[in-house]
């Protein structure tokens, strides 16, 4: 069995390793730590997300809440819910169809692919920080749909604004 000396030695090593990890983390990500301590984290994350999306989803047009609601009121576009089936069933934008991430592999066999490629579509996922709407919009553009828009505020923004929602349960 371990003696109290080895326990103390072990604890000292563990704390030293923890300290080393904390120092390395702070050194490598100083800008993140600094922004967080200064209360600018949300702005920094928004900026970094925007920068990443501009590269990763180049060419995908985006919409804000007001624009999405206007299109919905005018019934101009098909709303596509890119969340999981269970989330869609619980509550979704009124009139939206569900294309859950787990079905994207077989997107070419979906009903959506039988639609006119000029049909306007608004894709959304759960919230501002999720990328699924942009990922699906990119896939739909690659499949030939030319008028695909991503509503980046997601269902959370829609729901919080009190706009019409349906349940499938």
């Amino acid at each position, binding site marked *: 069995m371990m003696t109290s000396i080895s326990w103390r030695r072990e604890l000292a090593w563990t704390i030293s390793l923890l300290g*080393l990890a904390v120092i390395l983390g702070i050194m490598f990500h100083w800008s*993140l730590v600094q922004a967080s301590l200064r209360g600018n984290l949300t702005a920094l994350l928004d900026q970094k997300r925007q920068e990443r999306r501009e590269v990763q989803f180049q060419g995908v047009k985006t919409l804000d809440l007001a624009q999405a609601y206007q299109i919905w009121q005018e019934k101009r576009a098909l709303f596509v819910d890119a969340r999981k089936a269970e989330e869609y069933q619980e509550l979704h934008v009124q009139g939206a169809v569900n294309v859950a991430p787990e079905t994207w592999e077989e997107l070419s066999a979906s009903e959506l692919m039988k639609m006119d490629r000029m049909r306007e579509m608004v894709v959304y996922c759960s919230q501002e920080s999720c990328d699924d709407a942009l990922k699906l919009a990119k896939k739909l553009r690659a499949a030939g749909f030319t008028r695909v828009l991503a509503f980046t505020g997601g269902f959370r923004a829609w729901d919080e604004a009190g706009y019409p929602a349906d349940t499938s349960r």
Partner: protein
Amino acid sequence: MRFVSSGAGIVLGGLFVYAGVQKHLAPYEFAEAILAYQLLPVGLVGVVAATLSWIEIVSGISLILGCLLPSRRFSNPFPLDGILRRSGLLLILGQSLLFIAVLLITLVRGLKIDCGCGLFFQRQVGLESILEDALLLGVAGWLYWRECRTGGREEESLVLV
């Protein structure tokens, strides 16, 4: 049995290094994932996002080194390999317990968010992610229990010299 425990230690350490590197390479996405849990004040989210990835990396490397380093216990009553293994395991046990507690709280609160676990695929907080962490906790607990039971006597290193 020592090969099984050394192999399990290397795999467990490797998983933590992998998860830590994923988070280190995407610190802003990881900070967003932590923010979504709504458990920490915003002022601390960046600090946790910056350091947690390195705690995973350091604990994983410590465990792997402890399993690979040749044992010198005949010349040293506190061999480095054993200390590295146990320190790495203690850190992994602490992290696994923390992750499980956070996931359980989030599940009870009904938040449907990405777990930010940093392993092989993105998934939401749910029973799957809790079971995954429980499995890691179980393996780490078993390895640590073996270390305490034998005092590292059976734990000759995987690479024998």
